[in-house]
């Protein structure tokens, strides 16, 4: 069920009407029924139900047990480790069998033993990458004493399967989700705000993302002919496509949840205004970063293993360098995991993992040098021009990494990058070459305008202002002009295509 499909619209309407007309006590049950319907809509098979049940039961039972043994630290620790291993085991079994098999095969080839591996195709529940990690955080938070376990298994199931977050997050924490079980009354103001957020998300997806996808898909499918600046432009377009698709989905999801009365955590905060890749990752997929920080990075950094390495390297290199070694080691492991979380494929491990690590590492190493050079040459790094340079640099570095994200294999990605180094800038200006890739002048104009609007709205978010609240403070006539403009823009400029079939949400496969 795609987020911009008619089926989804009907599904959401039925859910909302159902939620607001039933008695207070069973409102959360409506959400549960809808969520389970959504979860199993595309694929209702015994194995899928089985995987979902295993994760639910393990998290539910172990959380209760951990709470029971909270004063016996050892027992609680064994229980939490065991539950995390089982949930991770299901996730690895479903998503990483092929990756692990192929990796072992490659390693085997290098060392001269042959290992025969056939790819396996399993039914995978939608949203498993989200709800498995969400349930791990639930069990771990109970262990850490940050929340009490949920005694009602159906309520536990609702937390795990809350339908808005199944397609593309955000990651939620049980301790922040009391609102799930509260009976929310219908609220007109909240509905308006939710609807605007949904419309904004649909605008991003249908007007910008789907349109960019046409160009990107065409160039990447014909990168030998359409090389040089075509590929550079496609790489930039792909990053914008990915962002508008992903953040647009999040807008739709948050809007729906807002109408129900449940505020979800923000996942993006003007990422393209970041002045470094380090900053970008604080503004991009924020809840994934926060999850990894709390459940992987901090525990890893504080672990005996890393601390031991710290003690060892301190003797040899001194305190400062040993601190850096510990930090980078933990970071490298975390970035590989971020890449792998996106998908069990080397393209992701490189594009959204190792390359990002290298960027952040280089930034950390080079910033002091850049500061020295700037102060010697008298360059002010706080001027508009310098900030713009930093922002464009960050954007382009990220776009380059995302070529791996979009390519079917590492070899292909490298091929695409190689073909980018052809000097043909005239294709940008000769008034015909660009229009050979599926978009005409009209499309480019629509894109240009829409992207300007996107950047303006994002800038407001970046400086900490809420555009919806701003809109609601405006004069009623002006407010409705803006709202109608947005709706008409979606209807008139949306990319529906012939026999419209929305492109798969890029983030949905994770």
């Amino acid at each position, binding site marked *: 069920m795609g987020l911009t499909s008619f089926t989804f619209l009907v599904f959401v309407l039925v859910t909302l009407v159902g939620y607001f007309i039933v008695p207070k006590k069973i409102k959360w049950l409506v959400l549960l029924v809808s969520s389970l319907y959504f979860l199993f809509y595309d694929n209702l098979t015994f194995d899928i139900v089985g995987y979902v049940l295993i994760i639910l039961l393990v998290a539910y039972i172990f959380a209760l047990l951990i709470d029971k043994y909270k004063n016996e630290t050892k027992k609680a620790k064994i229980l939490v480790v065991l539950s995390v291993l089982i949930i991770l085991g299901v996730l690895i079994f479903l998503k990483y069998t092929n990756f692990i098999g192929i990796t072992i095969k490659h390693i085997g080839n290098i060392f001269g033993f042959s290992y025969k591996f056939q790819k396996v195709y399993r039914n995978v529940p939608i949203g498993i990458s989200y709800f498995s990690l969400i349930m791990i955080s639930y069990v771990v938070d109970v262990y*850490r*004493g*940050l929340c009490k376990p949920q005694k009602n298994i159906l309520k536990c199931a609702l937390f795990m399967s809350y339908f808005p977050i199944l397609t593309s997050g955000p990651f939620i924490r049980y301790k922040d989700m009391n609102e799930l079980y509260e009976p929310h009354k219908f609220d007109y103001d909240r509905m308006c705000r939710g609807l605007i957020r949904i419309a904004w998300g649909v605008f991003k997806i249908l007007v910008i993302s789907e349109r960019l996808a046409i160009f990107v898909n065409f160039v990447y499918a014909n990168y030998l002919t359409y090389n040089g600046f075509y590929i550079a432009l496609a790489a930039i377009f792909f990053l914008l496509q990915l962002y508008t698709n992903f953040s647009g989905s999040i807008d739709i999801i948050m809007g729906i949840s807002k109408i129900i009365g449940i505020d979800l955590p923000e996942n993006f905060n003007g990422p393209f205004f970041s002045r470094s890749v380090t900053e970008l990752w604080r503004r991009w997929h924020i809840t994934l970063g926060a999850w990894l920080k709390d459940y992987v990075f*901090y525990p890893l*950094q*504080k672990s005996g293993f890393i601390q031991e390495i710290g003690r060892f390297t301190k003797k040899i290199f001194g305190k400062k360098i040993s*601190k850096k070694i*510990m930090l980078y080691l933990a*970071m490298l492991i975390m970035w590989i995991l971020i890449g792998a979380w996106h998908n069990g494929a080397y393209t992701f491990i490189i594009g959204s993992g190792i390359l990002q690590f290298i960027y952040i590492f280089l930034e950390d190493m080079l910033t002091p040098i850049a500061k020295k050079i700037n102060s010697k040459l008298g360059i002010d790094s706080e001027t508009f021009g310098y900030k713009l340079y930093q922002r464009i640099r960050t954007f382009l570095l990220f776009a380059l990494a995302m070529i791996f994200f979009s390519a079917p294999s590492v070899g292909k990605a490298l091929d695409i990058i190689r073909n980018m180094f052809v000097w043909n800038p005239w294709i940008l200006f000769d008034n015909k070459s660009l229009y050979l890739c599926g978009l005409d002048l009209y499309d480019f104009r629509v894109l240009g305008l829409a992207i300007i609007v996107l950047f303006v709205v994002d800038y407001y978010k970046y400086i900490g202002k809420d555009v919806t609240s701003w809109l609601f403070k405006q004069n009623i006539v002006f407010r409705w002009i803006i709202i109608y403009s947005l709706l008409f823009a979606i209807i008139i400029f949306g990319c529906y295509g012939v026999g419209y079939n929305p492109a798969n949400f890029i983030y949905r496969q994770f």
Partner: protein
Amino acid sequence: MKKEEIYERLNNVFRDVFDDDSITVNENTTSNDIEDWDSLEHINLVVAVEQEFGMKFNMGEVTTMKNVGEMVDIIMERKNN
């Protein structure tokens, strides 16, 4: 252990970890007040505090501590019980 003593020793730890002798912390100090105190440095700080006071924070505390005041409360609780 008295609060004043803890703050005094904490100042030294903070100054050492963030290489800045001008740092003076109080109960309301948060990571926003100290430029280098970000998620990358947080554990270095926590481990340095643990070593200074000969105690351990648990992971729940590490991830939820909001300001130095909370950190001091935990240190007092561990050291005085």
